[in-house]
């Protein structure tokens, strides 16, 4: 049951010279393959969209509603189908949300292009008209958008809720949406107001309990256990050090050997090791540190039993195996400097917090919670809970989407109504403008406009409404100048989406139309597969 799409192209190859027929069939097969991909994700669009279950070759199961994840897991073979996968990835990186929308739009545009090709319009003409139509669409979107003030929390929460509505965790959006808003606001950098570094938001997933028990921590979470050995698991007035050197016996090089020729030296060798570690530990203690985070080490044991023993005696909490990539995050949030050598252990490099505590998350799971951090940098942690692995992972992806949506708004502070309203508005306005154009361009713009209507069409279809009825009604409203009308999935008819508080950031729709049309153009330009 695998694609036979390129077979048409293969037969053309034998003739060994370029003819018009061949380029036509290549284009056709490309379009068909790409459309198939778009069709696969279409059912997961919108608040009533369904999930996909994907079982990979090694038996791992993913349940998701996120377009980018679905396409990524599906491992398609056809090269143009892959372009659509890339497209949704690009949307994921740029906007973070609307990854399904972008693919659906691209699929619809391809469908439109195919019909135009049949009519005999040259691919280049189509491609260029589409580009101009897309630019026009961007202007239309910009005009219908309303600016938003970032201090308006209520508005932001609504936005995050819209993004979460289509996910499996939608009934928890009352919890997750404000969480996403607060998290992004926390890490917002005053000096760079146009962007947000989402890496500064650490999401830690722990099985057990239900999603309701998730929480945002005003402080840091570390997904590790304390090392125990009688050391403390709860430290008040903590001084935290983040070290990048190892607390274990130094190893000699491979070729070198320490040679002992006298029995008295044996005891000394053992003593030396103890002394060496003890000195390190004492230096740590001297700086006033009582919580020690140790970077993961590959070459040597990050920490030996003996040094743990010493540190426990000094009442220092030890956490090892901090990933190298996380060093920046932790040094940021804890307000401490990573320390590369014991000689640099000084009080100034330490971060301070009111409480560092190991908490149990049910079963064997444990995390370390740091609260009341002084001089904390812009970083937050979120503890996600879920009753099974699949729900937990999907909750993670959904929260990520919500965070991205808020980030979009920071990048471009405009709002659009949701529920297919922007797409319908663009379609209506484009159709009007099309009449001002001449020749094939008019045809192409109309087709472009029609293609965009697939978004409200699909929304209605997924919600179990009559798609034809809904789309025509929507078209009527927009023709009468009600630009904010969209498909109200919950009520089952067409209403003003702004009043319903269904909103989405401008950047998402903006990017979706721009990137989808660019992708379609590049597919149209291909006339040969080798």
């Amino acid at each position, binding site marked *: *049951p*695998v*694609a036979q*799409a390129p077979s048409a192209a293969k037969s053309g190859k034998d003739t060994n010279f370029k003819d018009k027929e061949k380029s036509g069939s290549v284009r056709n097969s490309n379009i*068909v*393959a790409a*459309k*198939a991909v*778009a*069709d*696969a994700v*279409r059912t997961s669009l919108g608040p*009533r969209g*369904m*999930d*996909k*279950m*994907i*079982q990979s*070759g090694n038996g791992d*199961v993913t*349940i998701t509603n996120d377009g980018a994840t679905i396409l990524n*897991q*599906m491992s*398609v*073979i056809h090269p143009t189908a892959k372009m659509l996968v890339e497209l949704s990835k690009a949307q994921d990186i740029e906007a973070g949300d609307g990854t399904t929308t972008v693919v659906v739009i691209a*699929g619809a545009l391809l*469908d439109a292009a195919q019909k135009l090709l049949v009519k005999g319009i040259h691919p280049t003409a189509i491609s260029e008209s589409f580009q101009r139509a897309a630019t026009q669409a961007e202007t239309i979107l910009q005009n219908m958008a309303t600016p938003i003030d970032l201090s308006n929390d209520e508005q932001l929460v609504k936005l995050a809720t819209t993004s979460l509505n289509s996910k*499996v965790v939608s*009934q928890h959006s009352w919890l997750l949406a404000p969480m996403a808003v607060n998290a992004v606001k926390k890490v917002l950098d005053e000096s760079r107001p146009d962007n947000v570094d989402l890496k500064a938001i650490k999401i830690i997933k722990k099985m*057990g*309990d*239900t999603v309701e028990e998730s929480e945002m921590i005003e402080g840091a979470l570390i997904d590790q256990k304390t090392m125990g050995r009688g050391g403390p698991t709860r430290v008040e007035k903590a001084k935290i050090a983040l070290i990048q050197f190892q607390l274990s*016996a130094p*190893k000699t090089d491979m070729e070198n*050997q*320490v*040679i*002992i*020729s006298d*029995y*008295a030296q*044996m005891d000394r*060798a*053992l*003593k030396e*090791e*103890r*002394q060496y570690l*003890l000195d390190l530990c004492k230096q740590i203690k001297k700086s006033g540190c009582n919580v020690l985070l140790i970077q993961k080490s590959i070459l040597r044991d990050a920490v030996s039993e*003996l040094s743990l*023993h010493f540190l426990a005696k000094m009442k220092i909490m030890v956490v090892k195996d901090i990933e190298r990539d996380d060093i920046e995050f932790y040094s940021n949030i804890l307000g401490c400097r990573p320390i590369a050598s014991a000689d640099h252990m000084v009080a100034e490099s330490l971060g301070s917090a009111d409480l560092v505590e190991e908490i149990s998350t*049910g079963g064997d799971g444990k995390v370390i919670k740091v609260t009341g951090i002084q001089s904390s940098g812009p970083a937050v942690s979120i503890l996600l809970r879920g*009753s*099974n692995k699949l*729900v937990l992972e999907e909750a993670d992806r959904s929260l990520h989407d919500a965070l991205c949506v808020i980030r979009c708004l920071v990048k471009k502070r405009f709002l659009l109504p949701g529920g297919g309203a922007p797409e319908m508005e663009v379609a209506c306005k484009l159709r009007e403008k099309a009449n001002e154009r001449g020749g094939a361009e008019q045809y192409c713009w109309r087709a472009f406009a*029609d*293609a965009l209507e*697939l978004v409200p069409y699909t929304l209605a279809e997924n919600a*179990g409404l009559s798609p034809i009825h809904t789309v025509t009604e929507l078209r009527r409203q927009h023709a009468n100048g009600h630009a904010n009308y969209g498909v109200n999935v919950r009520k089952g008819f067409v209403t003003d989406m702004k009043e319903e508080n269904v909103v989405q950031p401008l950047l998402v729709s903006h990017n979706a139309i721009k990137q989808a049309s660019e992708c379609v153009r590049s597919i149209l330009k291909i006339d040969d597969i080798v």
Partner: protein
Amino acid sequence: LIQMATGAESILALTGRRTTGQSIRSQNVTAAVAIANIVKSSLGPVGLDKMLVDDVGDVIITNDGATILKQLEVEHPAAKVLVELAQLQDEEVGDGTTSVVIVAAELLKLGDELIKNKLHPTTVINGYRLACKEAVKYLQENLSFPVEELGRQSLINAAKTSMSSKIIGPDMDFFSEMVVEATELVKVTDSATGKITYPIKAINVLKAHGKSARESMLIKGYALNCTVACQGMPLQIKDAKIACLDFSLQKAKMHLGISVVVDDPVKLEAIRREEFDIVKRRIEKILAAGANVILTSGGIDDLCLKMFTEAGAMGVRRCKKADLKRIAKATGATLTCSLANLEGEETFDATQLGHADEIVQQRISDDELIIIRGTKARTASSIILRGANDTMLDEMERSVHDSLCVVRRVLESGRLVAGGGAVEAALNVYLEAFATTLSSREQLAVAEFAQALLVIPKTLSANAARDSTDLVAKLRAFHHKAQQNSKLSHLKWAGLDLESGEVRDNKEAGIFEPAMSKVKSIKFATEAAITILRIDDLIKLDKEEPRGGDQCGA
């Protein structure tokens, strides 16, 4: 615009198979129901056991839902969700693993029916969520009661309820007493927060062949499955001072990278002696601190054993580290992994020793055990199970573990509900009334949710070879009365008596379950059912070929 949806299926270039729409939903539901059918017959006091034989030939006989499902090697992804569900319930609550799977499967089955009747899946899902929330609220407000109302007897009753379905059911009077006592012995009050916890992991459950289940015993102390290191050591020490060591007492070995080179044969002997002397000095320090019992996770050299024997101390080698940790906690000892102190010297201080009234090596069946009695810092408890064969002992261990979990949950959360299908029937009646107050499509889903809960009393009575239709109808009538007429509200404890096949007041009869277990199982089951109902597409990718191969060779 519209045609693009059709016919594109076969063109989607995938190295795998794709199933969509209703067929995948039904397929998922069928798989889930199949899983539930396996465990269905083991629910309740008269439920039966399963015998599972794995590929090596090991036999497990069990009645515990989580254990059964863990042993099945389930392949279907949707069925796996249910298996995980049982395991989650096992981890979070420890009991009720069978019922959670049965409820989830029933929710799926009824939900699938609704969807087949053209109700949109999201409507079903919304209805289920609403019903779940409402059910949990009603349960907590109206159907549960605090432990204090009935005191210790309620703990014993809760333990009995959980045992009634298991192999130790016939001896439940005996075992419930034992389990409650064992749990009470490990009570820990957090000095900082004042929170009381019952770490049941600290109860050491040992299994010994022979005799009958009734000869099992509870030991107020810690039973260690080890023996003294050599014959000459004393087998009983009163007023024990215990050293817990996490290192070997063996001849010192140099680290890698250090080599010993001798060119004079006389020095060889000196080096050998020094190797031994390093350990000897350590042992002397430990003994000098007054230790007369030395437990170590590592080994003890024969040469060193002599020193202990001469000092009249008991030495035990190769103890499990987990055991040592618990013993250290119970006796107030410090588990020491090195003798080094902060001056870089090696010392052993008397404060690192733990204390107990008596340590004795006892023979139980074929094995000898070391029993630590009268621990000073904290009380400890161990249970030694006796039984005819291994499979029976294993099942007894699981049953005791379940009961321990139940007792702990009751003690920690402090609320109970009546068992025997009472809660499910009450929720069913309540939710059906609630459904009629909804004017939207969710009404249907809420009603089906209510219907799904009835699967528990139905299965209970069917397993007991009673007429389930008859009994469940009676039961619902009682609960209807209780909810309609506030004077008759005592009827809300009505549950099934499966021995006689009648409806009775299960609160009076002492059939209790922890409220937390019921709440969690309703929540978990709903979440699992929703996860599966939302799926409308299954993409199964082929296994990746190790060698490139002809991938398009379909």
